[in-house]
């Protein structure tokens, strides 16, 4: 058989953690992509966590003891990235935007992960009419533009009016609904594949109950690819949030700072050549999504042995060195 006998693995659990084990496996260009992704992602995470320490002003602050801030001031001096037409400091709003982004991402991904995995597992294993309905429903929603669905959901949740809680939660829930079908499809497909595997059938011929099969045999094997989907969906959540904000369905500037909304405001500035109000929040989105996607893609490659890269030069060196032995 192709599966060789490996020595019993006695690596510590730290080295088995997803990202750390991937880092050890990688080499060359793949490692470069993974490392730069990790750097960008940690930049985003630390900005979000330390936002109040980094930002010189509040996100809804348009003046201080010395009076109102200047409007549309060019970058420089007190306002390193300039100010907006509303007199907000672009730098502070961009920094606080990371906080909003991370909150929405976590809320949306966790909620959709939980519901999607549960539904996918039960639907895929038990089959029957429940499965059929779920599949048609999930497929219909999946084929639908996620942005439009998010719009409909945010109308439902907040009637389009954004309050402090409503704005952020509405965005998170809207995105959740959009992503449940994706997790559902992935987990269900995986369960359908595993169901035909001999190790599941061998539990069935033993007489194990459906719950036992689902929990001991299917759950861990079916969720193998989830870290990857997690990173990819996190980026989609962020882009959907920004899209909603851009269409004016985001969060009011006074309740939280949101990059998509700021870009919406910056559109008219651009026509008159004011570049700083749009450039920075835009770059913030690009950098965050880029970082997370790089991490996700590299993990995907490393998980798939066929996509993992081995160096032929290295093999050649070893062969020539070892041939005499």
């Amino acid at each position: 058989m192709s599966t060789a006998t490996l020595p019993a693995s006695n690596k510590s659990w730290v080295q088995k953690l997803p990202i750390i084990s991937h880092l050890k496996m990688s080499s060359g260009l793949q490692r470069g992509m993974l490392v730069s992704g990790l750097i960008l992602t940690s930049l985003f995470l630390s900005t979000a966590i330390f936002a109040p320490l980094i930002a010189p002003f509040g996100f809804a602050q348009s003046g201080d003891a010395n009076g109102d801030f200047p409007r549309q001031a060019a970058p420089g001096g007190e306002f390193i990235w300039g100010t907006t037409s509303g007199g907000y400091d672009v730098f502070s709003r961009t920094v606080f935007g990371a906080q909003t982004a991370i909150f929405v991402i976590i809320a949306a991904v966790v909620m959709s992960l939980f519901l999607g995995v549960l539904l996918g597992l039960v639907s895929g294993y038990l089959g029957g009419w429940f499965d059929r309905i779920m599949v048609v429903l999930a497929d219909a929603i999946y084929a639908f533009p996620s942005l439009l669905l998010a719009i409909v959901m945010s109308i439902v949740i907040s009637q389009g009016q954004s309050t402090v809680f409503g704005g952020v939660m509405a965005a998170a829930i809207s995105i959740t609904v959009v992503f449940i079908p994706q997790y559902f499809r992935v987990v269900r497909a995986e369960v359908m594949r595993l169901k035909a595997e001999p190790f599941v059938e061998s539990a069935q011929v033993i007489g194990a109950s459906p719950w036992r099969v689902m929990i001991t045999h299917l759950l861990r094997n079916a969720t193998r690819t989830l870290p990857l989907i997690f990173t990819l969906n996190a980026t989609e959540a962020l882009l959907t949030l920004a899209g909603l904000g851009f269409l004016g369905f985001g969060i009011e500037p006074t309740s939280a700072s949101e990059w998509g909304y700021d870009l919406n405001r910056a559109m008219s500035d651009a026509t008159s050549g004011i570049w700083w109000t749009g450039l920075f929040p835009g770059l913030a989105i690009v950098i965050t999504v880029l970082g997370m996607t790089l991490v996700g893609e590299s993990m995907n490659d490393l998980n798939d042995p066929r996509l993992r890269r081995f160096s032929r030069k290295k093999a050649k060196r070893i062969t020539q060195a070892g041939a005499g032995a």
Partner: protein
Amino acid sequence: MTITSPPGQVPSPLAAPKPAKQKGGGFLRYVITRFLLIIPTVFILITVVFFLMRVTGDPITAALGGRLTPDQLAARIHEAGYDRPLFIQYFEYLGQIFTGNLGRTLTDNTAVTDILTTYGAATLELAINAVLVALIVGIPLGLVAAKFRDRYPDAILRVLAILAYATPVFFAGLLLKLIFGVWLHWLPIAGRAGWQTELQLTTLQAPTGIYWLDALRSGNMEAFVNVTQHAILPAIALGLLTGGVFLRLVRTNAIGTLGREYVEAGRSRGVSEFRLTTKHAYRPALIPIITVMGMQIALLLGGAVLTETTFEWKGLGFKLAEYLTARDFVAVQGIVVLLAIIVAFTNFIVDVLAALIDPRVRY
């Protein structure tokens, strides 16, 4: 271990010899079954959207809540029938849709179907332009990336593809407008044509609504140049987003087919690497690629809403954003249902195209 020679056969009840091969027939049956599958999809979306939009309130309060007195509101609500039980309203709505009536907008009292005829062509034009850009960029570069897998050309192309995905269309649009419009003055930054050209094109006899086509048909080269100038930036903004997705799609599938044994079989017959990539790997990869590209129509339409808003391109997405701002949810519901139907039909056509390429379905 990489050395394998799996011994023994792997019998499975389903991999048994097929019964007598049936020619023809199969394809037509496939097309019909696939067509019938549209119905539940559209039906579910209409139902979901209807109930979602109605559970929290009626559209009249949402649109005019602040401007009318409670009595006036109640009168308007009664007049429109929104105070009746939800299920009666639902079946009435279904009946309406069945006769091709998607309702009338609240704010400007226009039939939603008229919005389609007036603005649909613009969205179609944008989508065609963007898909052209995406295909021209995505397919060749995806094949290059697959062939040079994990070497520098591939790494660079992949990072570019991720960048294309990571950049929201409206940010890409903002940068394009700033650079090519405001600073370099090369291209116009808003609209589908100059106002004179627009006037000329809309007064044509039986216009298609796709401006470059109309301009070509009327032989008006000046108009054609004007229209093309307007089309470039939106097409690039939306096309690059989709092109990045296509690139990754082509790359992944071509890597899969390049590793297949028939590619090695071709190699063992002395076939060149170029031909192995462009023929043996590309054609079989095309089937999953086309299917997944069909899925991207959803992404494309979502992107079109944002692109149209960014470039003031007066299409369905632009109108949708306008009605959203005006809180006219009847209009929003109508347009959303319309787009759902368009998505379902496009997916059908794409699946049939994919089946046409696959000889296993054709014969």
